[in-house]
């Protein structure tokens, strides 16, 4: 698979070529060209901000459709903890889990359960790798993708443990193989995801050769399907839940860090805030932190673009749900071993470089500076680039031209019309002189 695969796409029929998305994209990956948005996939980190902002719903996330369930003999739902925060008046997680079985899954394996295993592995890793402090969380795939292209100095700080959903898939399949005797390829582990970044991570993981996740459903698609089944099962739900407080807490910001049982951590959410924090960590502006939890979405996973509930309300609901749960229900005696660790180190991808060599780049940046002087600095977006600076960079990259700027174009037309009128005047003058000449004769 293409290493820059992403799952945020454009529906060109709906795109009106407005500039809302180019302004919101944190990596300046979008341009409007010929009246339609274009995503540069090398720059895109799948954060979904453009999906959130697009007033015409032209930005979409790809994910699997429900008929995927037919492809496998035995299917297991892997619900993210953020799913539980979507429902009103939910008092028992088992109701959601039973409803998932009613809607067609053969079994359910809570991602929260695997998250508790990750918490335990992380505690151990942090303790043993003091030299790598601060350790940076790798649970949010958008953040990992961002670090891969923009923060080369921070790659060594990444926590090299697979995300809870990946470990859930491994454990769920192992359980299913034991219970059913089926081979692994006939068992489908399907993630109920809050965001497109996790769709990408399942198809094209960073840090691992491949993922055990066989498909990803969007929470917003599952939500209406589940509601009627939840009503059916709410009287006497089967006991299926396997996660405690720590597991459920992963659904919102600070939950992962909270599960480490340390005080010396930082938790930031919202992609702009995440970028600011990463810039400052890179410049060593704060040291002596053990762990940094970063979530691209406001509020953490409950704020994912494929969720239906307001993230802050969802957070409160998760808090209520976990109130009477034990701290953790999963421990490392369930052997996960090497499968829980990364098997493919992440490498820096310098996609934002302007030239092939330093000399070439110096010349190009000098040209960018020169161009910026010509532009009005309004960052109006009319050229299709988010800022005047981005347009200047596009020009030196050879994908845009100066007259894409309407202000430059206006000056150009102004000059052209002046020249024309001068020409006209000169010719008129000539004619008059000629006439004079003829008159005198």
């Amino acid at each position: 698979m293409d290493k820059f695969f992403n799952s945020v796409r454009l529906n060109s029929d709906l795109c009106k070529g407005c500039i809302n998305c180019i302004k919101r994209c944190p990596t300046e990956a979008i341009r409007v060209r010929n009246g339609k948005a274009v995503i540069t996939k090398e720059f895109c980190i799948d954060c979904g901000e453009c999906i959130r902002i697009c007033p015409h719903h032209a930005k979409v996330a790809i994910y699997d459709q429900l008929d995927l369930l037919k492809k496998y003999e035995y299917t297991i739902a892997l619900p993210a903890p953020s799913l539980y925060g979507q429902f009103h008046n939910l008092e028992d997680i088992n109701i959601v889990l039973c409803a998932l079985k009613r809607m067609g899954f053969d079994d359910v394996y809570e991602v929260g359960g695997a998250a508790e295993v990750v918490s335990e592995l992380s505690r151990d890793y942090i303790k043993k790798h003091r030299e790598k402090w601060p350790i940076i969380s790798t649970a949010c795939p958008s953040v990992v993708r961002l670090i891969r292209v923009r923060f080369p100095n921070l790659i060594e700080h990444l926590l090299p443990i697979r995300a809870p959903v990946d470990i859930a898939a491994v454990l769920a399949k192992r359980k299913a193989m034991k219970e059913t005797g089926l081979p692994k390829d006939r068992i489908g582990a399907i993630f109920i995801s809050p965001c497109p970044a996790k769709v990408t991570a399942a198809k094209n993981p960073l840090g691992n050769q491949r993922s055990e996740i066989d498909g990803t459903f969007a929470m917003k698609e599952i939500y209406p399907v589940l509601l009627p089944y939840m009503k059916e099962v709410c009287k006497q739900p089967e006991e299926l839940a396997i996660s405690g407080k720590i597991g459920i807490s992963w659904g919102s910001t600070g939950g992962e860090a909270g599960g480490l049982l340390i005080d010396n951590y930082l938790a930031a959410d919202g992609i702009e805030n995440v970028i600011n924090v990463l810039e400052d960590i890179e410049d060593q502006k704060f040291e002596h932190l053990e762990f940094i939890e970063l979530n691209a979405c406001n509020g953490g996973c409950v704020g994912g673009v494929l969720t239906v509930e307001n993230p802050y309300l969802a957070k409160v609901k998760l808090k209520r749900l976990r109130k009477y749960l034990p701290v953790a229900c999963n421990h490392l005696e369930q052997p996960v071993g090497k499968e829980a660790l990364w098997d493919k180190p992440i490498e820096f991808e310098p996609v934002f470089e302007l030239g092939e060599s330093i000399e070439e780049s110096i010349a190009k940046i000098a040209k960018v500076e020169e161009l910026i002087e010509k532009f009005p600095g309004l960052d109006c977006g009319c050229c299709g680039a988010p800022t005047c600076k981005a347009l200047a960079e596009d020009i030196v990259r050879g994908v845009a031209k100066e007259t894409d700027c309407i202000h430059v174009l206006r000056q150009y037309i102004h000059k052209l019309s002046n020249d024309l009128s001068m020409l006209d005047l000169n010719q008129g003058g000539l004619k008059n002189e000629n006439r004079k000449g003829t008159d005198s004769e």
Partner: protein
Amino acid sequence: MSEVLRLQYHISNSDFTRAGEASSDVKRKLKQMGVDPKVVRRVAIAMYEGEINMVIHAEGGQIEVIINKSEIKMILSDNGPGIPDIDKAMEEGYSTAPDNIRTLGFGAGMGLPNMKKYSDSLKIDTKIGVGTKVTMVVKM
């Protein structure tokens, strides 16, 4: 096509909200140039410390950054009070920053020591009552 890039920054008076903008811009440009990430980090830290010093002690000034394929030179000039005792200022933890600055988390006395630590050469020309010019070079 030029092979040397000259960048000019004006550092404004005592504005902490804007302090760091110049070093961030240089960092971004160096990354776009494909400069070794470790070098980028050293430049960013050394320049940020210098920038903050100009804001704390000298009410702003000018920074010129000259980049060629072998080195990055940063010239920080201010019209501040000057440094009375350079040796003392170079000591880790020594600071003349006033209390209100320290409460902001600055003034830990690591500015100049860090600038020395992260650059390959550091030269300070200072005159009491006239100003200070700091020249730092980081090799590629």
